[in-house]
């Protein structure tokens, strides 16, 4: 597809339906967005010790994050340098001193360097074998960690991670700062929710604040009704219902949460408040935070309460509840959303218990909230087959965003700013501009 045709698919206020339905455009996205942007790989706590690895995908390509003997962190292609077999299975594992290929027994260090080949002298006098850089497991072009969050890029050129994250990095800061011990740890397993819809529906929806009170009526209003009937109108809701109930806050509440947008498609909703702001206090946690930071700094940290932050296109976090959802596109109409949970180091177990509960109730494929979102995307995927209407709207409050400087835009929550901002980045990546 040539540049002029691609350019016509995205206006400032609308996008053509084919960006969600055309397999050729999906292939181009894999090359130009997922092949260029910083893509989330994992968290350093998953490879805390030498010999540990964590294998995942970037786009459709197998990669692994590893920790070598000297403590160095690497992001490598999960592919034997010899005949290309994938080296380790997906997920976390430990290789001790070497990763051994299952096929011909080539052994590699956790830094990717070739350690040994059976009957290595067979390569003498050839242009391959030990000492040849191509015989090592190949590193990705770029890999960087920001406060423990490891991203990698398949492209050699482009902005550094910190510059790319821009103002959205403050959401990672706030999530990490919420740990009295100043650090996070991935724990508690993973939910792997398969969506039969395009990946962009998910990343758009996270900061679509006009949908929760509609899509989540059946779970959230029901939770409120059950709480009233079972516990009485004045009773404090148990944690599970405190999590579900705010999804049907008023339009005004979501509007006042506000939207923030940054370069490269990033953004977050909420700020001073969000649907996560009214959970019951855990006094032991507040005490641990005050002991670690002092009351003034703690007040600053808790004053920031964001809903979803999107690091476009792959990573989304919820700082106040310490969860992350990772986007893994498989095909134009197939996407896996993984949900991860973090322990705040130094915090009482109650916080982790609440994060786990949140993931169960909201992000599980078998639960009360996420499946209705998924149904909305599924219906979009089906509805957009209609050829009689070519455009998808994102006109709401066009031009009414405030420019806060340094690429930071702000709008009220009901604005379509998040979508327009994501497609601005989409267009820039797809045009081939690094």
């Amino acid at each position, binding site marked *: 597809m040539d540049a002029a045709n691609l350019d016509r698919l995205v206006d400032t206020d609308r996008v053509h339906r084919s960006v969600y339905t055309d397999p050729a455009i999906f292939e181009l996205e894999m090359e130009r967005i997922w092949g260029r942007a910083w893509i989330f790989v994992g968290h350093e706590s998953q490879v805390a010790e030498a010999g540990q690895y964590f294998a995942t995908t970037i786009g459709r390509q197998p990669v692994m994050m590893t920790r070598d003997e000297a403590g160095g962190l690497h992001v490598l292609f999960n592919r034997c340098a010899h005949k290309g077999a994938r080296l380790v299975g997906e997920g976390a594992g430990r290789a001790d001193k070497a990763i051994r290929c299952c096929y011909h027994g080539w052994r590699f260090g956790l830094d990717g360097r070739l350690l040994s080949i059976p009957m290595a002298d067979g390569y003498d006098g050839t242009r391959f074998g030990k000492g040849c850089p191509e015989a090592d497991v190949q590193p990705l072009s770029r890999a960087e960690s920001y406060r423990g969050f490891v991203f990698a890029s398949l492209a050699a050129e482009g902005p550094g991670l910190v510059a790319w994250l821009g103002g959205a990095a403050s959401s990672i800061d706030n999530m990490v700062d919420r740990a009295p011990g100043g650090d996070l740890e991935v724990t508690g397993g993973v939910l792997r929710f398969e969506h039969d819809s395009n990946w962009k529906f998910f990343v758009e929806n996270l900061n679509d604040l006009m949908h929760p009170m509609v899509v989540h009526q059946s779970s959230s209003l029901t939770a409120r009704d059950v709480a009233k009937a079972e516990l009485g109108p004045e009773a404090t809701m148990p944690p599970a219902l405190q999590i579900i109930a705010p999804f049907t806050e008023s339009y005004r509440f979501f509007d006042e949460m506000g939207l923030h947008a940054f370069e490269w498609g990033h953004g977050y909703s909420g700020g001073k408040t969000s649907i996560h702001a009214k959970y019951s206090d855990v006094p032991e946690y507040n005490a641990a935070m005050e002991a670690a930071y002092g009351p003034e700094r703690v007040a600053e940290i808790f004053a920031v309460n964001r809903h979803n932050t999107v690091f476009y296109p792959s990573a989304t976090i919820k700082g106040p509840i310490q969860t992350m959802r990772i986007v893994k596109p498989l095909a134009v109409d197939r996407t896996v959303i993984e949900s991860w949970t973090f322990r705040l180091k130094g915090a009482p177990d109650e916080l982790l218990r609440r994060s786990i509960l949140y993931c169960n109730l909201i992000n599980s494929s078998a639960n009360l909230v996420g*499946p209705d979102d998924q149904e909305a995307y599924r*219906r979009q995927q089906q509805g957009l087959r209609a050829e009689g209407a070519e455009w998808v709207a994102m006109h709401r409050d066009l031009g009414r965003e405030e420019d806060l400087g340094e690429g930071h835009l702000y709008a009220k929550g009901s604005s379509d700013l998040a979508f327009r901002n994501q497609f601005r980045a989409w267009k820039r990546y797809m045009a081939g501009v690094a």
Partner: protein
Amino acid sequence: MSTADLARHHQVSQFLFHEARLLDERRWDEWADLFTEDGVYWAPAAHDQPDADFHVSLIHDDALLRKVRIARFADPNAFALQPFPRTAHLITNVMIDEDDATMGRLLTTSRFAMFEFRADAQRIYGGAYRHELVVDGEDFRIVRKTATLVDCEGLQETVGVYF
């Protein structure tokens, strides 16, 4: 196996079949009444998952969450459940692992398959059930039902009903 053992096995199997039938016939309130007040329904997200507090689960419902879920089944805005899924739960390999008369507790494990028809496609879920029952006169009530899917660690599509 003695006649008494056979009768006990039959009684336990009939209880499990009855529970499955209530699910398939959408008799949710009767189904919920099979649980004790603090009874738990659990579908773990990993094999050998030690607990539901510090590890995510596909479903982990206490009585209150069962009430919310069941009330939602009837909600016209529960879009993911339209049209409402049809299911057939099949139960087999029923074993009584513990039958403690003094404590009034019984533990039974079985294997299940759930056929589900939703959104123009039939899906098959399969796995192991573990029922911790309290003996209630001639009947049983569920203290904890665990439904572990064989593919609980794999990719999961939306599923709106109880396994």
